[in-house]
């Protein structure tokens, strides 16, 4: 009964993953085996190091903000009477529901160099407009902002579920012991939620690090490759540049970080499974 599942995973996930390693060691026309030359070549390219830096900074910053916003908003929803929570939750999850490619288009329009609605609003109060997607640092900010916008609701939902599972009696005991809201947060809420916080963050780290849609639609990696991530650059180099082996090599650099995060997640899940 599990055979189709195993087949799918073997053929379409494991096999390509292994094949990509092989591919990365071929030359551009894929006729000769060139060993680690592609990797060596990448190390010499300045763009490559920029991509590495951008990917790491992007992933860490975005996940940190998503976690923070998700955590705070979850608390706000939790503090509201239960009957109303459903509609707040409903509204707040919308960014996650809309296909990222579509919503990024909306952001693209909001950031448009000539017609940006944000710039128009800023100018109304006397602040000059910003070249959101044209200047490197604002472009990076924009990409992170959109990613946070899309992903924070997910964190909110997970954290809200975890918040609700903390027994009310713990808070009551803390009240009797004389704790203020900060102490309750630090000594009751956070420890009880530790597992969920870790797993969600690691999960998101993996997904954010490998992000494609948002960068591609918003900036296509520009300006001048300043917002490229591994995924978008691999696409550009491999498919648009018709150098599949090089593209594969780029993609593979994601692997160490993903494996690192994955081992932590696995450890956490099995530990939780054993505790339960």
């Amino acid at each position, binding site marked *: *009964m599990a055979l189709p599942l195993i087949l799918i995973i073997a053929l379409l996930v494991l096999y*390509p993953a292994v094949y990509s390693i092989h591919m990365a060691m071929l030359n551009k026309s894929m006729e000769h085996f060139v060993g680690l030359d592609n990797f060596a070549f990448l190390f010499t390219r300045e763009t490559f190091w920029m991509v590495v830096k951008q990917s790491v900074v992007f992933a860490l910053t975005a996940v940190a903000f998503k976690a923070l916003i998700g955590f705070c908003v979850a608390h706000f929803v939790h503090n509201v009477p239960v009957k109303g929570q459903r509609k707040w939750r409903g509204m707040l999850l919308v960014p996650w*529901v809309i*296909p990222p490619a579509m919503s990024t288009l909306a952001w693209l329009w909001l950031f448009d160099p000539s017609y940006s609605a944000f710039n128009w609003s800023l100018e109304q109060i006397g602040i000059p407009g910003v070249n959101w997607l044209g200047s490197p640092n604002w472009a990076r900010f924009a990409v992170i902002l959109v990613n946070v916008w899309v992903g924070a609701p997910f964190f909110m939902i997970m954290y809200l579920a975890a918040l609700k599972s903390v027994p009310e009696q713990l808070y009551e005991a803390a009240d009797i012991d004389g704790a203020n809201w900060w102490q309750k947060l630090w000594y009751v809420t956070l420890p009880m939620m530790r597992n969920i916080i870790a797993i969600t963050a690691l999960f998101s780290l*993996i997904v954010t690090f*490998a992000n494609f849609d948002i960068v591609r639609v918003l900036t296509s990696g520009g300006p001048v490759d300043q917002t490229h991530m591994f995924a978008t650059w691999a696409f550009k180099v491999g498919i648009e540049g018709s150098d599949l082996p090089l593209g594969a090599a780029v993609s593979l650099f994601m692997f160490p970080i993903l494996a690192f995060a994955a081992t932590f997640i696995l450890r956490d899940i099995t530990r939780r499974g054993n505790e339960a």
Partner: protein
Amino acid sequence: MAVARSSMKGDRRRAMIWSYVFLCIFVVFFLTPPIYMLITSLKTNAEISAAVSPWWIFSPTLDNYVELLTSPTYLTFFRNSALVSILVVSITMAVSIPAAFALSRMKFWGSATLATGVFLTYLIPETLLFIPLFQTFVWVTEFTGIELINRWWVLVVLYPTLTVPFATWIMIGYFSSIPKELDEAALIDGASYLQILTKIFIPVALPGIIAATIFAFTVSWAQFLYPLAFTTSTDQLVLPVGIITTLIKGDVFTWGQIMTGALLGAAPPLVIYAFLMDYYIAGLTAGATKG
């Protein structure tokens, strides 16, 4: 004593008021882009290029909607997306449900490792796999003459890799929470394993099935990378790629149409979400809370 009591209630009230304040702020943040999509979609091109407030509609029009809904290209995109999504959902559930049943009930050798392995494959992103897959498909096309590149149904083969692992994970969680005694009662009542799956497990775990179905549909509908890499001709594109590549004609962006196209493209998941929000959320949290 009275002071302490009222300060607790006061604390609660203040927390609630501040929460409402911040919630409003965040709702504005989260809902601005879709609302702006809606606003723009109802404007004429003239109004968009004029230097008037982008946040207000001065002369609303449904022209954009009419144009898109009668455009054969756009409708082709919609059709392709719908076909792909429905097929992928069917395949996903057909694979995940038996697999989850096997993994959660039949303790065969390696079932625990397989279950964890299933979860891990979900963590291998498509951005790692798309290049070797592309190459493999090109190779197969050359060898066998079956057109694997630039055909929308190729996506039906690819998408399950994204949906099946997590859907299986969700179903395993739901199936595991069904008490074993139910199986035993059914065995004594004379049910075969297949009957236990179809007459007992599926009905009892129906919320999980709905959640997994919604998840599979949403992921399929929103897919961008695979179609971008694997399909190029206009009549083979699915919605997300179609809108972005064809509505942006050169340097002229017809934003009214683009926003309408994007909004209509986002509509199916939003509609499902509006009606089945609880199942949607259950699907998300199932992975974590049910372990």
